[in-house]
């Protein structure tokens, strides 16, 4: 690992940042859809939908930035990974169509049993599962020849990718449950607390399982994590996971409404950092490095200029939008 920060590394960090923001922001609103079956009452579902209606579109825009950013900065990776992940990607896109339109459609449907609630829940489950499977498929590596994907059409489906798929569903559900703890009151919040407990146990199991399975995929992963002196830098990650878990347990026990969501985000950040440690400097693991995939320098600098000005601006007004809709969601006062 060279210490000099070069353009391709900067871009890898930017893409990693965009994908992470996507994962946590759309993560909690996908999580709400995943939890829909546990909140069958219409009144609860209305509150749940209201809690993200003003922000879901912005959350999903980070996914478009991730896709567009990879095409711009690492076109070769984009061209290899998307055909390799063809089926999970198509499944994800279709799932996102269903759950995206449900935000508006469910208020328009006049039937008693709302079909768009099913679309929202089903779409969220499928999108999360597909994203997790795609992650696992990338980690286990894809076959490349010349500048093309050269593997088969079912290569993405392995026990490992199913494990990462299920893990991400649980992880998103935890973000969703802790979001509800923060944004709601009464019996809805109490149920969200109980679900948070179960999901926390689930996600810890998933983190352990993925951590044990990953080094078996490639010897490079093992060396990256356990070889001296790397271990000095990698050891703090599991230690921090343990610390965040302890804080999360305390927050759930003492019912600090705001902490569980942010601590769950921290858990995601640590797991994500772990993935980054495993992958770097590959963008297609074990086949294509970020330098091989990098777009020519003038494409990367042209876009870097815009990113460095616009991302802070975007974070600013997105933060403002969240601030406007801050606090607990309540049935509108004035009708009571």
């Amino acid at each position, binding site marked *: 690992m060279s210490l000099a920060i070069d353009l391709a590394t900067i871009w890898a960090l930017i893409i990693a940042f965009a994908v992470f923001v996507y994962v946590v922001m759309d993560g909690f609103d996908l999580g709400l859809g995943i939890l829909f079956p546990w909140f069958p009452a219409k009144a609860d579902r*209305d509150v749940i939908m*209201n*809690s993200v*209606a*003003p*922000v879901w*579109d*912005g959350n*999903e*825009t980070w*996914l*478009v*930035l991730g*896709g*567009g*950013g990879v*095409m*711009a*900065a690492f*076109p*070769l990776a*984009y061209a*290899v*990974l*998307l*055909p390799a992940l*063809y089926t999970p*990607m*198509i499944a994800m*896109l*279709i799932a*996102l*169509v269903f759950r*995206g*339109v449900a935000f*508006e459609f469910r*208020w*328009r*449907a006049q039937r008693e049993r709302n079909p768009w609630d099913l679309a929202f829940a089903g779409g969220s489950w499928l999108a999360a599962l597909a994203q997790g499977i795609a992650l696992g498929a990338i980690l286990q590596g894809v076959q490349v020849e010349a*500048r*093309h*994907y050269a593997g088969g*059409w079912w290569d993405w489906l392995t026990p490992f990718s199913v494990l990462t798929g299920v893990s991400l569903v649980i992880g998103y559900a935890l973000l969703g449950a802790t979001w509800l703890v923060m944004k709601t009151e009464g019996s809805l919040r109490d149920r969200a607390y109980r679900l948070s407990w179960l999901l926390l146990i689930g996600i810890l199991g998933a983190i352990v399982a993925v951590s044990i399975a990953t080094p078996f995929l490639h010897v490079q992963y093992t060396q990256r994590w356990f070889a001296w002196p790397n271990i000095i830098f990698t050891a703090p990650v599991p230690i921090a996971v343990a610390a965040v878990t302890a804080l999360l347990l305390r927050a759930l026990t003492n019912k600090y409404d705001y902490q569980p969501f942010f601590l769950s985000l921290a858990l995601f950040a640590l797991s994500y950092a772990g993935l980054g440690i495993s992958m770097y400097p590959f963008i297609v693991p074990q086949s294509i490095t970020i330098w091989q995939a990098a*777009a020519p320098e003038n*494409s990367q600098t*042209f*876009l870097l200029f*815009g*990113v460095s000005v*616009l991302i802070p601006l*975007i974070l600013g007004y997105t933060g403002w*939008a969240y601030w*406007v*809709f*801050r*606090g*607990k969601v309540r*049935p*509108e006062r004035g009708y*009571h």
Partner: protein
Amino acid sequence: MFEGWDAVALARAQFAFTMSFHIVFPAFSIGLASYLAVLEARWLLTGREVFLNLFNYWLKIFAVAFGMGVVSGIVMAYQFGTNWSVFADKTGPVIGPLMAYEVLTAFFLEAGFLGVMLFGLKLVGPRLHFLATLMVAIGTLISAFWILSSNSWMQTPTGYAVNADGQFVAADWLEVIFNPSFPYRLVHMVLAAYLTTALVVGAVGAFHLLHDPHIAGPRVMFSMAMWMAALVAPIQILAGDQHGLNTLEHQPVKIMGMEGHYQSHPDGAPLILFGLPDQQEGKVKYALEIPKMGSLILKHSPNAPMPGLDTVPRENWPPVPVTFWSFRIMVGMGFLMFGLGLFSLWCRWRGTLFASRLLHVFAVLMGPAGFIAVLAGWITTETGRQPFTVYNLLRTAESASPLAAPAVGSSLLAFVIVYFVVYAAGVTYLLRLMAQPPHPGEAGPSHEVPIRTAGITPAIEGVTQ
């Protein structure tokens, strides 16, 4: 399933299908966002409640249409990689940054302020809310800027070089962005979006005027829409003519396809009004034509020579029957819009704008005309530049992913089924909203009828801690 099919043909069908479903929503929401900004501005300036009612009325429609545009747009953003990976690898260094700039400058702006625009009037007050509406409207226009720049670069590539890996790289970004066909295409498309929205607003207004010519809301929206049609339709015809001349300069083969000019005309080309282009035989059968008129329009001289497709190798021919007919449909719609605009001016002058049933029926029938024209126009320009993705430089057949036909065919089938279910529902909901006239005290998207009975609104009531 799909064994033995041509994977590239299926990928093209998938792109055409998903793109056609997508484009009608941006075309509508670009115009509608600007219209909403105008309505809110007039409400703030005059304080007249009718403008707020109309704003809330169209805002609910905007919310549904915008969501459908967003989700179908995400599909487009990933399709370059799934089905067109060679294209993505080769053009990514040029097209990628343009599309990333679209996300950064437009999509985030729209999405960031959309929540406040839809649900936040009470929370932030009218002035800040107007700012949010304005940001969403500006965002839709910025989005048009970047995506049309990308598309235009594919049509008339300039400012590029090719590197050792066979990738296009930018030699001069300004030349890439402001490539020769971009200004014309941008103007033509933004005007088309404004006209499309004006025709929908006009049709909804006319529909309610047919039932009751006295209610305020429909009168205001109908009058505004008819001004737009009367003013913008002639401008659009001029802009389209200029765009055509630009195409003749940079993509003459496309013009040959649009005009059905299989043969060269060394001393003045006719204008073929209608006919049946036969790609196999290379001629237009049963052609109804005006001699010399083609040269007069395109070269402003009746005897100017016009080369035809007989000067172009057959493997570089566009699919003339499609290009030829879609072009005529677009132009026909344009002239009908112009006619509606003129008719409305005449009725306005006579004082029968709100009374003429004939005008109202005409306006209702013209409701979908903008969508038809937008689709026909895009089909013209996209089939007319075939068989290339990057004009004269990268062939469509060499742009596709190394996919087997069953993979592309199954995903196409999935999109067809899903889009028909989702869009049928969406269009039903939109028409249901439009079938209600705007009422005094019209509620925004945050006061939903089915919810109000439960005592809950879709809007979040922010409560300071």
